[in-house]
């Protein structure tokens, strides 16, 4: 009888080992998800060599350590061209997400919504259906003021249309940059 239990137990041990073998290899892709960790707005004052960059950065993604966010500081009554750069800096080397938005421009749209700050923003780049993308824009600043600019990236697979409100689609980016015209 005793022997039988021993046999059973050893059979069970074997099963345990088999099960342990089932669990997948640890070295496979781990902790790798397509994150957007970094949003950089690069401003070039038109006709000058003046460049200003404002960056939002959250390298560990949602939760965890808090992100850092710069203020946008521009001159009043000036014209800027703005280009947006999106990065995934959670991996090394950093991955450029801007290209992917560019490639799938038909499904993506960036919005710039100023509040309080005296700025007129126009998106200048267009997708294959001549709808705005927003990776490039012009910013025309007015009188000195302080407020915010909300930067939103929407993902609208197959549903992007002219005049979409900012509420349509799924949000990939939604940031408020404090903006000072001084």
């Amino acid at each position, binding site marked *: 009888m005793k022997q039988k239990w021993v046999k059973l137990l050893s059979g*069970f041990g074997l099963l345990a080992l088999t*099960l342990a073998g089932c669990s997948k290899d640890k070295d496979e892709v781990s902790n790798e998800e*397509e994150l*957007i960790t970094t949003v950089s707005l690069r401003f070039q004052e038109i006709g000058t060599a003046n460049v200003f960059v404002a960056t939002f950065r959250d390298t560990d993604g949602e939760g965890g350590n808090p*992100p850092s966010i710069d203020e946008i500081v521009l001159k009043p009554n000036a014209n800027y061209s703005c280009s947006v750069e999106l990065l995934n800096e959670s991996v090394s080397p950093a991955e450029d997400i801007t290209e992917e938005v560019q490639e799938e421009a038909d499904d993506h749209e960036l919005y710039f919504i100023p509040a309080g700050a005296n700025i007129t923003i126009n998106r200048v780049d267009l997708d294959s259906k001549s709808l705005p993308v927003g990776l490039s824009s012009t910013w025309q600043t007015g009188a000195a003021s302080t407020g915010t600019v909300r930067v939103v990236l929407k*993902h609208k697979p197959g549903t992007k249309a002219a005049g979409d409100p900012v*509420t349509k689609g799924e*949000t990939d980016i939604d940031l408020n940059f404090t903006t000072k015209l001084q």
Partner: protein
Amino acid sequence: MVVAIRRILGILLLGLVVNSSQAQCILRFSGVVTDSDTRERLSGATVRIKDIRLEVKTDEQGRFLFEGLCPGSYNILITHIGCQPVESHIHLKDDLTQDFVLPHTHSELEEVVVVGATHKHGTAITEELKGRQLAATRGASLGESLRSISGVNVLQTGATIFKPVIHGLHSNRVLILNNGIRQESQQWGSEHAPEVDPYIANRLTVIKGASSIRYGSDAIGGVVLVEPRLLPAAPGLYGEINTAFFTNNRQGVLSGIIENNSAKHPAFAWRLQGTLKKGGNSRTPDYWLMNTGIEEYNFSAAAGWQQSHRGLELFYSNFNTRLGIFRGAHIGNVTDLETAIERGEPSEEIKSAPFSYTIDRPYQQVHHHLFKLKAHHTTGTAGKLNLVLSGQYNNRMEFDVKRFASSSDAPQLDLSISTVGTDLVWDHNNWNNFRGTIGVSGSFQLNDSYKQRVFIPNYRAWNGAVFWIEKWTKGKWMLEGGLRYDWRKLFDIENNNSERFADQQFSSVSGSLGGTYRWSPELTTTLNFSSAWRAPQINELYSDGLHHSSARIETGNPSLVPERANSWMLNMDYQPFRWRFDIGFYYKDISNFIYLAPDYPPVLTIRGAFPSFSFRQTDARLHGLDATVGYVLTAHWKAEAKASILRAWDKTADDWLIQMPADRYELGLQYEFGNAKHWQDSYVKLSGQQVMRQTRVPVTGNIEKPQPDGSIRMESDYAPPPPAYFLLNLEAGTKLFWGKQPIQLSLTATNLLNTAYRDYMNAFRYFAWETGRNIGLRIMLPLGKQH
């Protein structure tokens, strides 16, 4: 629709008139009672017709006879010392001869969980789903099947994911035993449905509260037992083919069983079982719910070898599912959620989606393997020793919407957990009116190698327990008491970035004490007290990150201590002539109740603000009432009313607890047709279900809600609980004879009036209506000789 119901009622009434005009109380009901093991005829067995309180004893030849019965349907109870009682339902139209076979209490194939003779679960408060009731839920998921039991609700995530809630508690507080083995998966998630194929079971039992400590101390909410029928003991090849079709999501289910007991080696029996299921998008009264398809394929195999003093049983089950998650519930951040709530319904693109069987992202894909080996050996006349070894592997993959078409196809969440466990249990036979069980149990767990998104870390765990339960039965009394010690250690806790977390170790004692007193054959009361505890789980201790399905950031708390529940339950079962009252009260005090508390301010992420929650502890009080009242109007008509009422209070905050099921009432009217030559057991049941609005929610929270006057109010939820709703359901069944081949048919129509409603316990109530009318047809074909 109303016309159709009137017509049905009309037919039913006509049936009643016709039948009652034939009613003459001259029928005879006779038969023979035998022992299933020895095949001996049992003398002195009691055969009782419960409905009319008639009782006879079998003679030396095991025969019994009732005379002068009226036509109608009756509930029969057959009892004999040393045998398990058998309940049966008969339909008398002509004289009836029916034999009964009583399983022996020492029947070798019984589950270890069977401790008692008359009260299988001792003084625990239980409710079962079996036979006709279970047949009417075939094709539904486990959680959905259980919701007809009073006191049991479901926590839903859209149309595809159902999680059982017992007395307001769920997830880690509810244990599921699949064929006697604790289901070990990622139970902590409210959108992680139990990985069990209900077709395995021929009985689903819910043990309410912690009234049974046999299965684990952490079952503060309750235990769900998924119990397969015993392997065939009589030689022959048997089988069963089940099919089910549903109109709402055009779902088809095919499930089969084949089992054999060989005449050459009567000790040996085996069974194979398998299920295939495929359903498409569900439909609300107005629109299709995009991407809510479901696919499932499961199989199980069992083999048993039984001799009079020892036996061996092997069981393996494999569960695989792919569940679509409603596309309209995918949100980027809190602003998206608020937009969706404000809109009140899915966006046009989502609403206009057609019916489809395609399951796209977001979806879940889950695999579960369970292996069990059970051996037992009698220890003289004193008792029986049982050894159970089990192994489980669970893999859960959650695929979210891809950010770019070019993004990788990998799942965003990929978790695997392996568990090996063993139980050594000794059941002792009657000794001075005592019967009992002493056991040790242990398990080792490996939650290994999550991939992609971090939500919970990897860990290993040891669990150990010893328990002793004794039951004393004498005369009208039954007393039961049990003690249990559990120990749990979590170690090697790390994330893939080689960040390590502190080990955690918990241990404590739980106990239960209960008494049942039978005042008369009609009235039994049970009082049960238990004190149980639950160690904080991995997500409560160390979760860190975005819980996508709930669009919130959850942060664990490594300094949590175990929670303890002290519960009282009082149950009354009273069955006077024509009436049946089954009324249960419960009162549960939970100290250090672990819950997700909202933090302020919300966490800033690249996608905007996310509400942030962290695990905290409070003292809670849950009490309520489960009641079922039945009345037999005539031999054909029966009425039943059910109520489930729960009050859940946070004693520290002096406020209601959030996300608790609202009060629910049900009223049913059933008509039983008499047996005809080719139709048996035919019935029609119309029931109405009223679910109240949950008004008992916390007054304040951390969610900023701008008011029309421009001020901001802090709310506990994004949207107020949905209004009360009423649903009408219809159920009909019959057993048809095609020659000698019986065919069981069951037809159900849920949400008959196609009511548009939302349920507070559905996480997707913010985004869409619940599903509309669903008509289900089930056909069951038993094959081979019936036993």
